[in-house]
C-alpha cells in the first residue's frame, strides 16, 4: 500500500523517508558533529556502510516509548511518504498481527520461538489475577497515545505490550525517531551498529559512527565519557571492551539507573553470546555481530520494557510468588534433588517471580542473572545455550525450559550440552511432585489473589482511635477503600538484604494506571539512587515530598523499605505506618520469601 497523501494517515507512526521539517537537516547535522570532531584531526571514525538497505521483518508496529504529547503531535504533524513496506499497521491491527506471528526476525539455523513465548502477553509487575489493575498493568509505556485519546481509557488498557522491535523504518533523519523518549544503542568500537531500540541498525550506521567518534575522541584525550546532559536529555555511555552501549533518554530517570540499564542490556547480550565475543573483535575489528543476535529483538525489547515496570532492575533483588511455606518447601526439595544429580541450577518460576530455586553446591545465582535469564526464557526458545554474565561471563550453560502452563515454568541449567534427556527426566520428576501436591493450582490461585495489599495492613487500633496529631482531621476518614492503605499509604517495597529478595505491595488506588505506576517506579528509582550514592555509602533515612508523593525510605543492615504516601500524608503517621509495614512483612515472611534453601545463604 502506498500512501502519498500525507494527511490521510496522521496517526500512522512514522514510516517516512522525507524529513517533514525543512528547518533542520538532521542528516547533515549528524555529519557535522563528526566533521567537527574530525576537523581536529583527532578522531578517525572508521568508514561505515551507508546502509540504505531496509530490512523489515515484523508486522509489529505500535507506537513506543514516547507515549507523550510530544510525539503524538510530532506524528500528527508529520507528512512524508509512507514507504509501504510496513503494511502500515494501524493501532487496531497491532495486537492481532503480533499475536499471530512472533515479531522476531528468523535467521537461518535459529529454532522457532517456543509456542509458549508467543502467548506471553506482558507478564507484569507484582500484580496478578484477573483484576482490573491487571489490565491496567498491561497497558504500558509502549502503547500508542494519540493526542485526542484519553490515556486511561479502557481500550488503551487492552493494548498489551508486546515484545519485538518497533519503528524499524525510522532512522536519525526522522523527526519521530529523534523524539523517542528513550533510545538504546549498542555498537562496536569500530562504529558498527549492533542494536538500536528504534530504527533499522543498517540505516543508523552514520549515527553509530558519530557515537563512536564521541567516545573515541574523549578516549584519545585520556578520559572516558560517561554522561552528556542537555536540557531534559541525558546521553549515557558505557564501554565494555570492544562493545559500546549508549542510552539517549529524556525520561526522568537518574544517571545511575540508566547506566544500570545499559549494564543489564550488556548482560543480556552476554547471556546470549558469552564474553567470548570479545575475541571475535580482537581477530577482526570490523567484525559484524548483528547476525549472531538475529532473532533476539524480542529479548531486548522485553528487557527494555522491564526497566519501566520491574523493580528487580534497580533493586538487584528478585521477588517470590506468595505461597504457603510448606508448598514452597516441597518444591524446594525436589529442585535440590535434581541439582544433586548434576544440574547446576534448577528454578521453578511463575512469570518473573520465583516459586523456588536450588543450585549445586557452591554455585550461587546473582539476582541480575536471574532477571536476565527469565527475561530471555519468556521471550525465546526452550532449550538453548545461555551464559550467566554474573556467574561466569566466559562460558555457556545449557538451559532446559519447560512451561507447565502459561505462567509457570521450570528452568534447569547445566554445563553439559548432552544432558537434554537427563534434564527432561528431571522435569518429569518435578512435574510429578507438582501434580501430586497440586502446586500448580495453588500457584494459579496465588496469581489470582496477588500479593500484599496496602489496604489489608492491620491497623493498630490505637492509631485509628487516637486523635490525630495532625491539624487535618480528614486524615482519619482517609482510611478507606479507594485511597490506598491507611493514612495515605499508597505502595511499598521491602527488600531483604541477606535474602537478595524483595516484596512489593500490589498497586492500589489511586496508583492504578500504568502511567501512574511507571511514575511511581521512577520516583522510587530516584530515591534508590539518592540513598545508594557510591561515594557516600548508603544513607540511613530519607523523607522526600514533592507534588506527587511523600516517600519514605529506610536502609538498615537487614532490610530496605521504600514506601509511597499521599503527598499530604502526615509525617508522624507515615513513620508509624512504615513500622507497621515492616512488622507485617516479618509476620508473613515465610510466605513471601524463599527461605533457607536459597543458594545465597551458602
Amino acid at each position, binding site marked *: 500500500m502506498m500512501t502519498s497523501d500525507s494527511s490521510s494517515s496522521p496517526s500512522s507512526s512514522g514510516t517516512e523517508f522525507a524529513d517533514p521539517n525543512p528547518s533542520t537537516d538532521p542528516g547533515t547535522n549528524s555529519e557535522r558533529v563528526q566533521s567537527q570532531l574530525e576537523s581536529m584531526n583527532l578522531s578517525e571514525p572508521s568508514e561505515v556502510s551507508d546502509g540504505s538497505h531496509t530490512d523489515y521483518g515484523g508486522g509489529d508496529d505500535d507506537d513506543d516509548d514516547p507515549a507523550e504529547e510530544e510525539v503524538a503531535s510530532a506524528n500528527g504533524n508529520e507528512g512524508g511518504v509512507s514507504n509501504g513496506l510496513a503494511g502500515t499497521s494501524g493501532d487496531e491491527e497491532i495486537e492481532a498481527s503480533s499475536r499471530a506471528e512472533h515479531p522476531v526476525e528468523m535467521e537461518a539455523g535459529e529454532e522457532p520461538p517456543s509456542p509458549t513465548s508467543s502467548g506471553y502477553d506482558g507478564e507484569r509487575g507484582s500484580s496478578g489475577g484477573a483484576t482490573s489493575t491487571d489490565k491496567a498493568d498491561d497497558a504500558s509505556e509502549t502503547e500508542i497515545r494519540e493526542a485526542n485519546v484519553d490515556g486511561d481509557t479502557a481500550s488503551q488498557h487492552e493494548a498489551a505490550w508486546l515484545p519485538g522491535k518497533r519503528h524499524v523504518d525510522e532512522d536519525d533523519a526522522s523527526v519521530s525517531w529523534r523524539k523517542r523518549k528513550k533510545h538504546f544503542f549498542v555498537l562496536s568500537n569500530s562504529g558498527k551498529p549492533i542494536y538500536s531500540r528504534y530504527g533499522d541498525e543498517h540505516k543508523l550506521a552514520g549515527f553509530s559512527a558519530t557515537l563512536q567518534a564521541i567516545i573515541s575522541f574523549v578516549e584519545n584525550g585520556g578520559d572516558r565519557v560517561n554522561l552528556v546532559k542537555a536540557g531534559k536529555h541525558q546521553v549515557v555511555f558505557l564501554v565494555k571492551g570492544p562493545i559500546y552501549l549508549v542510552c539517549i533518554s529524556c525520561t526522568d530517570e537518574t544517571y545511575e539507573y540508566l547506566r544500570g540499564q545499559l549494564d543489564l542490556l550488556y548482560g543480556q547480550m552476554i547471556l546470549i553470546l558469552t564474553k567470548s565475543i570479545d575475541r571475535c573483535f580482537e581477530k577482526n575489528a570490523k567484525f559484524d555481530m548483528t547476525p549472531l543476535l538475529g532473532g533476539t529483538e524480542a529479548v531486548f525489547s522485553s528487557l527494555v520494557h522491564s526497566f519501566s515496570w520491574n523493580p528487580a532492575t534497580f533493586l538487584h533483588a528478585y521477588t517470590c510468588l506468595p505461597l504457603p511455606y510448606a508448598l514452597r518447601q516441597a518444591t524446594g526439595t525436589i529442585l535440590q534433588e535434581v541439582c544433586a544429580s548434576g544440574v547446576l541450577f534448577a528454578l521453578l518460576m511463575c512469570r518473573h517471580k520465583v516459586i523456588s530455586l536450588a543450585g549445586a553446591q557452591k554455585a550461587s545465582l546473582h539476582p541480575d542473572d536471574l532477571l536476565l535469564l527469565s527475561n530471555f526464557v519468556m521471550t525465546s526458545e526452550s532449550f538453548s545455550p545461555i551464559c550467566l554474565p554474573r556467574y561466569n561471563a566466559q562460558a555457556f550453560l545449557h538451559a532446559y525450559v519447560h512451561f507447565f502452563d502459561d505462567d509457570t515454568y521450570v528452568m534447569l541449567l547445566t554445563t553439559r550440552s548432552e544432558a537434554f534427556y537427563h534434564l527432561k527426566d528431571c522435569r518429569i520428576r518435578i512435574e510429578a511432585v507438582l501434580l501430586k501436591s497440586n502446586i500448580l493450582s495453588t500457584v494459579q490461585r496465588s496469581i489470582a489473589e496477588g500479593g500484599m495489599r496496602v489496604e489489608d495492613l492491620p491497623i493498630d487500633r490505637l492509631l485509628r482511635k487516637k486523635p490525630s496529631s495532625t491539624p487535618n482531621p480528614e486524615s482519619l476518614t482517609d482510611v478507606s477503600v479507594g485511597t490506598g492503605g491507611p493514612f495515605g499509604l499508597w505502595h511499598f517495597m521491602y527488600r531483604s538484604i541477606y535474602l537478595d529478595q524483595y516484596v512489593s505491595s500490589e498497586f492500589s488506588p489511586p496508583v492504578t494506571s500504568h502511567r501512574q505506576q511507571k511514575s511511581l517506579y521512577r520516583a522510587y528509582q530516584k530515591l534508590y539512587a539518592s540513598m545508594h550514592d557510591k561515594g557516600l555509602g548508603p544513607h540511613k533515612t*530519607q523523607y522526600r515530598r514533592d507534588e506527587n508523593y511523600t516517600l519514605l525510605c529506610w536502609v538498615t543492615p537487614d532490610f530496605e523499605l521504600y514506601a509511597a504516601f499521599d503527598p499530604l500524608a502526615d509525617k*508522624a503517621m507515615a*513513620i508509624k505506618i512504615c513500622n507497621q509495614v515492616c512488622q507485617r512483612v516479618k509476620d508473613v515472611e515465610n510466605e513471601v520469601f524463599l527461605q533457607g534453601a536459597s543458594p545465597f545463604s551458602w
Partner: protein
Amino acid sequence: MASTSSGDESLRLCMFDLRRGQTEGQELDKILFFHPADLDFSTQLSVIGLSEGLITFTRLFSPEAACEVIEAERHSHVFYEAEPDIWMVMVVEKNKETGAIWRIDALRRVLKEVHSLFVMFHGSIRALIEIEPTGGLTRSQLYPFITDYLSSKPFSPNLAHGIFILFPSFNTFNITNCQHFKSGLALKTAAVVNCSNLFVGKKLQLPNFRETLRERGTVKMLTLARDTALEVQSLVQVLDSCAGNLRCHSMVLFQDLLVSTTLSADDTVNLFTFAVMRLTSQALSSGASSWSYLRKGTGSSEVSSRSTSAPLDSLHSGSGGNHMHNVIRPLQNDKWTKGKDGFLMTDIWGLETGGSPDSAIPTVWLQQTQERVYLLAYQYKRLTLLLLMPTTSIVNGDLSVSAVKQQFIEDASLRVLKIEEKISRGWGGENAYHVKGYRYLVVDNDMEVSRASPSGKVTTLAKETLLALNKLREEVDVEKSRAKRQEKDLEICIRAKNNAWVIARVTRGKELYMALEKASDTLLDAADAVGTFSNRYCSGAFLMG
C-alpha cells in the same frame, strides 16, 4: 593524541563563537578566550571541537537546550551559552583526594559571573565582535579580564562570607588536613601558614563541596534596625539627587553586606560582586598583602603579559593588533586606593591628569536601563557607597564629576558617618547570622538574595555531612532544571551514614538547605527544627509537611 600538553590540567576555561571559523583552516578564529593561554593550539582546538561537536549532537535530540555538561571519568566539562552562539566551557579535573568534588551548577555560576561582570564593564561580547569583526578587540579585552578574575583572591568574591577575607586560605586549605582543625583558632593558624589565593600549588581552587552552603551570584543583605533603616532611606534620597536634576542610582554596603540599592536585581548582583571583590574596606586592606600566584614577586602588580594578552590576536589581526586597542582591566588587583576626600581612586581607566578629566572615571553598563554610567565609590570605615551617574549628563557638560563629589561631601558625608557608627554598634560581627545548632543556606531566587551560616561555623561540619549536602543540592538542581517553568515544591530530609541530617526545602522560588549534626534527632525532630527555623528566620516560608 589530544591533551598531551604539559602543565596544569586542573582547569581549562574557554570561550568560543560558533558563528566564526566555520571554514576549514579557519578554526582558530572561533577561539575568543582560552585558559591556560599557553596551551598549544591543537589542544585548544580539540577542547573546542569536542564542545562544538556535542552542542551539535545534543541539538539533534534536544533542540531547545543543547549540551550543558559532559561527565567523563576524570573531568567535568561545564557548558554555558553566555550569549547566542557564544559559549563558555570549563573543563575541571575531578580528584576525590584533593576534594575536587563540586556541583556542576556551582561551576556554571562561575562562568555566568565572569561573563556578567565582563558585560558590565565592556558591553556584550557580540557587540564587541560587531564593532571589530576580526575579534581582536574582543580577545584583547577578554584575556586580561578573565585572567584577572581567575587570579582574584580568594577565587572570586565570597559574596556572603566576610570571614574568607580575613582567613583567605580557608577554602583553599587542603581538605584532609582541614579535618583536624576543628577549632577556629587552629583554622586561623592554618590560614596564616597557608596564605594563598585560588592558585594553590598551581591548582585552581574552584567552588567545591565545602562551599555547598553558599550561593554565588546572590547578594547577602544586612538586616537593619528600624531607625537605622530610616536613616539609610534618607541617605539614599540624598544620593539620588546628588547630580541635580538627574537621578543617580546608588548602592550602599557595610563590609561585604548590602545595605541598600536602587538598582535592579541583576545589576545589583553584578555591582555587588565587583564591590566585594575590589572596593569594600576588606578588599582594599587585603590588597596590601600580596599573594597572587600569577604575580611574579617583584612587587609589580602587573600580571605577566604572556598570560593576559591574547595570543591569538597577533595571529589574526596582523602586527601590533593588540596594541591598537585600549585595553582596560577593571578586575586588576590592588588598583584601588582610598583618597583623602574618601572617594576611591584608580588608574585602571587612565590617569585623571591626562586628557579630559572625566575620561579616567570608571564606567559600567547597566542592564536595566541599557545605559552607561559613571561609577563613583566613597568609603567611610566599613561603609562603602557606590554612586552611579549617567555618562550623558557629564558629556553634555551639565555637570562635572568633581562638582558631584563636592556636593556629595557637603550633603551626605555627615549622614554616612552617623550611619556607619550606628550599624557598627549594632553589628554582631561575622557571626551575626549564626543560628545555634543550624548550618544553613537560604536563597531567594526572585530577589537574588541569600543568607547563610558563617563560613567559620560551616567548617565545623564533618566532611561526610558536607558531601551529603553537596550531593543533595545536586539532586535538587536536577529537579529544578526539570521543573523549569513550574514552581517546584520539594522537601527532602536525609539521614546520612554519619547520622547527620541534610535537608533541602524548595518552595515558591525560595530554597533552604540545612545540615543538622545532632545524632539523636529523629526525622520528626529534624522536621521540627526546620519548622522552628523557618518560622523564626524566614517568616514561615518553609512550612514542613
